[in-house]
């Protein structure tokens, strides 16, 4: 259903572009205000790790993003039902085509080329990507049972996907499920590690963090660690939930407590990061975002599935993509 809602094609790329442009123009005018607001919140809630992390404070004692053992045990408990079409992860499965569409859209704005590129080539021309004949390399951080890892690995332009997750139990499910599709064997690998301890031998064209940052103790340090592994011209694409009254209502009260379509304890509302906070974080990172930074809000409509809705990034689930400058 949701796949149908949003296709990367000419008409929709306009709407993405529109969002991106709207956001880019808004950035210059209000980002300062957002930043101020965010700093003051940070001061008030300095015990709340989300703000602390995004504020660029030291992060975990070892300087990384950290792994929350409570989160790991929560997802361990979900492991066996990860691929159950009618199970607790159903909403994630339904969201997956939208993740693919958003990632494809980001990549269509440009990806690392074969050779080095002149700096003045402009942003988002969509031309840079044509040179990638070696195939896309992807690091899916917090891959869980492998819903996104498998699907991005199946795309014909993808050459290699590493799925990274700190839970060995969840990765066991991912590995077992990947064996059901013989075409994945050469392309998809799972690595049991946190991003802090992960030492790949190369950088990636795309790093994805789907529904991850809201589960991490120190998101800023976590994101900075991820950023090191992105090849110049490559992308970080993530999805998460904004910390608003409406997201508390939908993800905690309705989804977890009342309807119970999402297992209780899946979300910690305090850890949610708002889109302007995310944007302002990346704006401060040198060498990031000048050639592409965009977001897209989406909403789950019972009976219809996931729908991309303009402006909803301020209220609930949103996708965020940011490109490392070439």
């Amino acid at each position, binding site marked *: 259903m949701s796949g149908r809602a949003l296709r990367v094609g000419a008409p929709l790329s306009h709407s993405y572009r529109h969002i991106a442009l709207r956001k880019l123009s808004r950035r210059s005018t209000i980002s300062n205000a957002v930043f101020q607001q965010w700093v003051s919140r940070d001061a008030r809630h300095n015990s709340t790790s989300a703000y602390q992390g995004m504020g660029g404070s030291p992060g975990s004692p070892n300087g990384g993003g950290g792994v929350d053992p409570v989160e790991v045990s929560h997802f361990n408990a979900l492991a066996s039902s990860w691929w159950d079409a009618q199970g607790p992860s159903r909403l994630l499965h339904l969201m997956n085509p939208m993740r693919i569409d958003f990632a494809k859209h980001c990549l269509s704005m440009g990806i690392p080329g074969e050779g080095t590129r002149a700096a003045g080539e402009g942003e988002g021309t969509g031309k840079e990507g044509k040179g990638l004949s070696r195939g896309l390399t992807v690091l899916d951080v917090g891959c869980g049972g492998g819903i996104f890892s498998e699907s991005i690995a199946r795309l014909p332009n993808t050459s290699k996907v590493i799925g990274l997750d700190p839970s060995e139990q969840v990765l066991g499910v991912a590995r077992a499920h990947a*064996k059901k599709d013989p075409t994945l064997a050469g392309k998809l690998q799972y690595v049991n590690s946190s991003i802090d301890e992960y030492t790949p031998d190369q950088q990636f064209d795309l790093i994805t963090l789907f529904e991850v940052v809201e589960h991490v103790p120190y998101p800023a340090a976590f994101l900075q660690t991820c950023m090191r592994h992105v090849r110049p011209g490559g992308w970080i694409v993530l999805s998460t939930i904004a910390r608003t009254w409406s997201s508390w209502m939908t993800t905690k009260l309705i989804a977890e407590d009342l309807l119970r379509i999402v297992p209780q304890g899946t979300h910690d509302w305090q850890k949610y990061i708002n889109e302007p906070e995310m944007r302002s974080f990346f704006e401060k990172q040198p060498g990031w975002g000048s050639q592409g930074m965009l977001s897209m809000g989406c909403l789950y409509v019972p009976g219809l599935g996931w729908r991309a809705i303009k402006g909803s990034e301020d209220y609930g689930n949103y996708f965020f993509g940011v490109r490392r400058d070439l």
Partner: protein
Amino acid sequence: MQRSLLHLPIKRSAWAIRTSNVARIAAVRSFASEASPNPEIYDIVVVGGGPVGLTLAASLGAARATSHLKIALIEGMNLASIRDWNPTPDYFANRIVSLIPSTVKLLKETGVWKHIKQERVQSYDGMQVWDGMTDARVEFDWNKLLGGREEGIDTTIAHMVENIHLSHGLLQRLEELAVKPTMIDKTKVEKIEYGQMTEDVDMRDWPIVTLSNGQKLGARLLIGADGGNSPVRTFAGIESRGWDYDRHSMVATFKIEDDSAFPKFAYQRFLPSGPVAILPLPGNFANLAWSTTPEKVAHLKSLAPEDFVAMVNAAFRLSYTDIDYLHNLKSGVVEETKWRESVTKYPDPPTIPVRITEVLEGTRASFPLKMKHADRYIGERIALVGDAAHTIHPMAGQGLNAGVGDVYSLVKSIADGISHGQDIGSSFTLEPYQSERYLPNNALLGFVDKLHTLYGFESGPLVPLRSMGVEIINRDWFGLKRFLMSQAAKS
């Protein structure tokens, strides 16, 4: 009437039952370490090489997103006779289909329609439908409704094509494809079971199809286009509910009187035993579809050719009482109808069809009518299309059109799954197909079924009511007629 309220057990063919048992037992046993040759892996295995199965293979091959898939199609019959079909202008087969414009549009898009010999296709843009008891009549005629043919408006209601002609065109299209599906004909599905787990792969949810020639095919997605008694559906454990109508449909091809002075119409008269229809073919040919009781069908088949011809002419002219009486005659129908028609008032063509003059030898055949709807169209690595998913009363000529609608929707879902990196066998890929097709098909099945019931009454309060309804439609009050006609064209 009560029949439709009961869910009678559906009689499955012995073959289907055997398959299901074998499949279930095999599914349990497949964990054992018996030595078996490795199955050849396919993206899609289609069981059934009828018009729907062939349309599916052709559509998958023609769509850019799916054209690279490795596909096998299995058919029990010999496809060579269809491939080598070489028609003569003085003969038309008895099994014909009515293709509505949306079906033809899809066949054009998939490159099939160019292989259809237009001189053997008869389109019509008018229908005469009337009640055998009250003579209440609906004329569906776009030309009359629009006050003459308008430029640029396709007023075709449907195109009549012989089944074998359509299948022949589909096979020709399949020959042209860059990646041709593996066509396995004259071969039966011996059993379907789940695969095994090895060191490298886990095929325990992959259907493995064993053929009568010993070949084994592993299917990422197994599609049943294998008819009302679908072995694929049985394997998937999907129930199909419905009932037998206790009616058979009698078909035959005729030569008719010269009708060149009239527009080509389809004619259908609702008799309490079931509708009788004459459908146009090119030149002075026409096709019969007469739904009635198995006993009456047996009688019609036993009649001498000239008595059979007289009987069919009478079915569009005489009262139901007369027709019922004629069914008791073993011979002498010609004389009897001559006399009865001479004392009966009936309209002239083109309000009724011109007289048929001759039945083509060997074209009298019949098949039982059923209404069946599968509980689901999909399972993990399973999809059902066409009659495997739904069997409909043929009076509205919608069976194959619904099957082609299924194909179009399923191919769309598969293409969407591919572009999003989904496993095409996963239920997440297939769910949109089911949610798009189930309710429209259910409504169509229900509508046709209600018509069958409604026109089954010889007398009673519903008889004048149904005539009143028909009058309202015929006068195009509330734009009902236009609505019905445009719906029939879209479906």
